[in-house]
């Protein structure tokens, strides 16, 4: 597709369940980011993939959070044993990996943990 695609767009789950969020970046983009945004707030950095380099996981809030990027393309963010405080919009973005590269965002996955 032409843009960044995320799925699901909405996910409602029960506390303690695991969830997987998927991101399909723009073809050819070497850099992929996951951010978390709580209602009305800014973007909290979670994890950053750049080419074949080891991912920068410094923003993951706990060991319940993990992410993979297979074949340098699609990425999956997994949250294990979800908690109510995990409720937020999870945004994926990609760019060409340069310092001036525009970040292109998906529409986000809204996660609600009951």
């Amino acid at each position, binding site marked *: 597709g032409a843009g960044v695609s995320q799925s699901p767009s909405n996910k409602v789950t029960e506390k303690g369940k695991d969830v997987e969020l998927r991101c399909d970046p723009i073809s050819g983009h070497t850099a992929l980011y996951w951010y978390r945004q709580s209602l009305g707030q*800014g973007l909290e950095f979670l994890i950053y993939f*750049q080419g074949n380099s080891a991912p*920068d996981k410094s923003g993951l809030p706990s060991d319940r959070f993990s992410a993979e990027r297979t074949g340098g393309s699609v990425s999956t963010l997994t949250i294990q044993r979800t908690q109510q405080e995990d409720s937020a919009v999870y*945004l994926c973005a990609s760019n060409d990996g340069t*310092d*001036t590269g*525009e*970040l292109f965002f998906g*529409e986000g996955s809204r996660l609600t943990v009951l």
Partner: protein
Amino acid sequence: TQLLEQSPQFLSIQEGENLTVYCNSSSVFSSLQWYRQEPGEGPVLLVTVVTGGEVKKLKRLTFQFGDARKDSSLHITAAQPGDTGLYLCAGQTYTGGFKTIFGAGTRLFVKA
């Protein structure tokens, strides 16, 4: 840890007024971007500034990058209701690749 602090966090003004949003850090950035986000959508790039002291204009929006490349400002002249949204500054630093971090955002509401 690089942090970007934005101020104010919230701004409610009348149509026609001017405003300035600030983005500050103790870290040096190779470049800085401003994004605008509307409800239910991802942020969209407004501008990228690269050189210390650089000023860029986009219609009624003026962006400035500080001389030391640690801070930036966004000035809007004669704000319109269509300017309403969340404005986010984002800095790029090199950590094995160019990583982008965001400020907390400034929510602007322009009343007609």
